[in-house]
């Protein structure tokens, strides 16, 4: 029931629109000309290393930081100059920022009371939210009596109880231990499905981003590097930064020795490959590029492999992880390469120090221009 009510709140095309927003602190560009439309009901993740501007951007949407340039629209209204308390956003802080002098009920009720709901309305909405966040029976508890996971749920409940126009999550899982974090990820997904709230999630954890998001916005040095759905982002990174930041990847130097309108041929060390040309590939013959190969796309060569796709390396280490093994090899002219194979057979087959013949899954090789970004 709650689900329908909440999803019906907005039918606008774009719930949040960030328009050419910049923020400078002195000479430092924390956020540099960022534009990002977010659809109603979408779960968007701002992903990047610390200092990339993702938190600054979130704080500008909430109204805690004023942009130096650009505009922010929420629900179709320009809120750039609207103070925090009139923006109708719901934020979950990294520190949770629960009110320690209030119990669970009063924490969740805080936003509703500011909105002058009647006492019975407040009680109804609070109990509804508390039930949805699986906190029933804890209304009277003090914050200090709650576990980390429960505090996290109260913080979420407090933010969604007001049915905000946009839910802002500032690294909410980073304070939890690993198993709790996995569990909270599931609960976040459920919460998002139940409420249909437009959500902006900030994290530096690419795993969280991949598993939670409808779309991921990768940021670095104050600029958007790529906006894409998780699968697209993983398999088609727009540049070297995105390729290296999302998942593990081998970045290898490659030389193009033949290029036509339809195909290009290149050499990655001793490996030679020919791939159908993609429209975004602008390189010509003789150019150096970067070939990106994910560890799961490297394997032991078999007799079926063509000689041009086989290269010999020396095994440096095996890291056995139960379901799979990460093997590091050194290949002359290419440097170290990581290979990920299922199970642990490889540990016995090619012991450390022994030579191993490996091959690439050539259809999965990603080619990008050879520049820092």
């Amino acid at each position, binding site marked *: 029931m709650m689900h329908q009510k909440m999803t019906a709140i907005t039918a606008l095309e774009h719930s949040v629109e960030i328009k050419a927003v910049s923020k400078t602190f002195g000479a430092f560009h924390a956020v540099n000309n960022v534009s990002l439309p977010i659809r109603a009901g979408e779960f968007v993740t701002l992903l990047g290393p610390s200092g990339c501007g993702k938190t600054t951007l979130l704080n500008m949407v909430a109204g805690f930081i004023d942009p130096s340039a650009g505009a922010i629209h929420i629900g179709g209204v320009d809120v750039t100059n609207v*103070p925090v308390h009139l923006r*109708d956003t719901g934020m979950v802080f990294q520190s949770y*920022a629960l*009110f*320690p002098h209030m119990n669970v009920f009063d924490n969740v009720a805080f936003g509703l009371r500011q909105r002058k709901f009647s006492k019975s309305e407040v009680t109804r909405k609070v109990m509804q939210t508390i039930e949805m966040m699986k906190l029933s029976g804890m209304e*009277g508890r003090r914050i200090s009596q709650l576990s980390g996971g429960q505090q996290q749920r109260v913080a979420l409940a407090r933010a969604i109880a007001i049915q905000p126009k946009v839910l802002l999550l500032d690294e909410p899982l980073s304070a939890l231990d690993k198993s709790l974090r996995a569990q909270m990820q599931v609960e976040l997904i459920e919460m998002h499905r139940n409420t249909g709230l437009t959500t902006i999630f900030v994290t530096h954890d690419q795993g969280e981003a991949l598993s939670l998001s409808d779309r991921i916005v990768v940021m670095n040095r104050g600029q958007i590097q790529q906006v894409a759905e998780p699968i697209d982002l993983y398999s088609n990174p727009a540049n070297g930064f995105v390729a290296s930041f999302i998942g593990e990847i081998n970045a290898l130097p490659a030389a193009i020795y033949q290029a036509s309108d339809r195909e290009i041929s290149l050499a990655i060390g001793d490996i030679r490959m020919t791939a159908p040309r993609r429209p975004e590939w602008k390189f010509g013959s003789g150019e150096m590029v970067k070939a990106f190969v994910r560890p799961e796309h490297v394997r032991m060569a078999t007799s079926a492999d063509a000689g041009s796709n086989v290269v010999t390396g020396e095994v440096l280490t095996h890291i056995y992880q139960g379901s799979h093994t990460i093997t590091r090899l050194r290949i002359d002219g290419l440097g170290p390469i990581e290979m990920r194979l299922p199970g642990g057979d490889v540990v016995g087959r090619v012991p450390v120090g022994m030579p191993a013949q490996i091959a690439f899954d050539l259809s999965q090789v990603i080619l990008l221009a050879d520049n820092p970004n």
Partner: protein
Amino acid sequence: MTRQRPFFVQFLVPAVLVAVIFAAAMFNVLKYSFLEFVPGSLNVGGFTLENFTRINRPIYYWVLLDTFILSFATAFFALLLSYPISFALVRAERNWVRSVLVVLAITPLFTGEIVRTYSWMLVLGSDGVVNTALKSLGVIDRSVPIMYTRVGVVIALVQFAMPVMIILLATAISQINRDCEKAAANLGATPNTVFWWVTIPLTLPGILSGFVVVFAWTMSAFSTPQLIGGGKVLMISNVVYLQGFSSFNLPFAAVLSLVALFAALGSLALMKLLTARLEQNMATS
């Protein structure tokens, strides 16, 4: 234990010395309170309970009550005046503003009580700064008495207590999680609501301890009520002084001292009780 903390015993020596001497002094005060006063002599007579019966007179009740009221008023106004200063001290964005506030707030601590009190006499007197200013502004045509009044005493006591209050409050304010204030604003609270419903409650421990410390401290104030009150405003210490060093009735002075001590301890215990309940209520309401 001595092996783990090799200097443990040696380090305790100064503290033990101070404690022993203090206990001996307190014991003497206690002893004197049970000894007979011999008029015209510093010597004392034998055991008596007469000193304790003598205290059962309205004048001493009034002095005690007055001390309570003046201490309470001092703590209250010191709190009221110090909170904004502490707040600005912690929250000011410009470094120089903070530095100026720290210097202004803390330097009075390095001025002797007598010097400060004497300055207040110059300010509060009938030809003092306040009266002269008010007269030249035409607010009043005759000097208003501030010296030798409770108001004057409280003004000086408040200023005397403020540095300590400011330090205690500033510590409390600097320790609160500012995300709580941001969260409240984010949930729709106006800056005013954030202050009264989040900032103040979160700094309540500092507010309470500041209040209690200043209250207890002012209970034993001596030179400020002595000089500004000029004998017209008596706090318990001034009566102890009168009995002990004007009438040389040391036994009765000892009794008054004990009464003052237990009154202070009693009121601190009472406040502790009240604040414990208050804190609990705030946490469960």
